[in-house]
């Protein structure tokens, strides 16, 4: 099967891209890395009328740290995130998770923004955005909007982005000093997750809230309030870890799929949560 026919445009500025997006007389899609979109089009699961190729808009790529905010441009390739000393130092949860994204050739083209805009339920980057409480910056001809990750992932491949909006960047608070945990189960190296957990804790004070994001188990990346409660304060003992792990899927509608049934995914989440938190504790030991 080969791609269906489509019109192709390659704007060289954000404004030109937004003008194309604003035309709702045809179904247009943004072409960034293309590692998901072109795969879907190869199988004719997607047939937009127009592809808007944003790969030449250099201002959309890059990672910088300004005024206490780390901003990852939407067009930043996964490979660049993986190689970034800034990410390694200041966003270690992201640095860990990016290693499980696909394979080197995919990471050379795939982009951070593309992953978050598509919001595949089994992808790593949406869960990282959620665990980190990132802010997604969207722009259209109507202006710019900032969307907190908690308000962004709405359903299966459904985000708060409107059809005329382009994801411009994601903004993170540095978390280099905070405890974090990550674990994923996939059938083959680099596959989408059968289940995954991304955790960012805060040990600034005893009640500091935890953020626990699950992926690969529902229609989108989502948080686990039942696991977050025992992890408040950021220094969980063995009992708190067991509590978080045992209850991680409480209240969550877990979807089975071709790779694992719902009971299997619930089991995996419990195991992964426990393992990730114990690995976190071990890292903290001198």
């Amino acid at each position, binding site marked *: 099967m080969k791609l269906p026919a*489509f019109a192709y445009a390659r704007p060289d500025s954000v404004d030109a891209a937004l003008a194309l997006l604003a035309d709702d007389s045809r179904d247009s899609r943004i072409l960034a890395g293309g590692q998901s979109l072109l*795969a879907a089009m190869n199988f004719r699961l997607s047939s937009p009328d127009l592809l808007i190729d944003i790969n030449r808009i250099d201002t959309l790529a890059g990672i910088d740290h300004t005024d206490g905010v780390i901003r990852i441009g939407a067009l930043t390739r996964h490979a660049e995130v993986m190689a970034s000393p800034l990410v390694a130092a200041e966003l270690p949860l992201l640095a860990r998770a990016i290693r499980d994204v696909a394979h080197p050739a995919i990471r050379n083209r795939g982009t951070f923004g593309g992953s978050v805009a598509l919001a595949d339920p089994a992808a790593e980057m949406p869960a990282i955005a959620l665990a980190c409480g990132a802010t997604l910056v969207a722009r259209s001809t109507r202006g710019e909007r900032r969307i907190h990750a908690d308000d962004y992932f709405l359903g299966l491949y459904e985000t708060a982005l409107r059809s005329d909006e382009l994801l411009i960047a994601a903004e993170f608070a540095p978390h280099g000093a905070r405890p974090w945990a990550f674990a994923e189960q996939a059938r083959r190296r680099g596959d989408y997750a059968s289940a995954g957990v991304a955790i960012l804790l805060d040990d600034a004070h005893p009640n500091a809230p935890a953020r626990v994001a699950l992926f690969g188990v529902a229609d989108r990346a989502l948080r686990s309030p039942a696991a977050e409660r025992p992890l408040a304060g950021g220094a969980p003992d063995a009992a708190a870890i067991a509590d978080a792990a045992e209850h991680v899927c409480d209240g969550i509608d877990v979807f089975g799929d071709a790779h694992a049934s719902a009971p299997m995914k619930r089991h995996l989440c419990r195991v992964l949560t426990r393992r990730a938190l114990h690995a976190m504790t071990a890292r903290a030991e001198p």
Partner: protein
Amino acid sequence: MTHARTETEITLKVNGEPLHATVDTRLNLVDFLRSQQGLTGTHVGCEHGVCGACTVRVDGRIVRGCLMLAAQADGCAVDTIEGLDESGVLARLQQAFHRHNALQCGFCTPGMLLTAADLLAADPHPSRDDIREHLSGNYCRCTGYQAIVDAVAEVAGQGDPA
């Protein structure tokens, strides 16, 4: 370029040779290389980026030829197995592959070589785990992988990268 069209002109380099072509916008890079340029050393397997048989180098970086449009290669330098073979940069890897029986049908081999070369360019002395990790996106149905890892490990153990 903002006008939307279903056919477009591209100017690029393929294996060092400048090239100008008119392509359907829906033509992907690997199909362009195989059908329009006769460079059939790059193979088409899964067409969704998983198997690695379509791996080519664009502006020095390995990519999936099935997940890039020929239109997107405008202004780029593309290297295929043919060009890299001719330039000799893969010679040590190729010789090691022969010594270790790291190919049988050869379908995965161009992708394996490009990916292994990519690893060794960044890290001349990777561990076996590093090699497996980097090659995890290239599937082989014949060899069972061990011989491929052995071949890359042999080159990795030598002084300079391939």
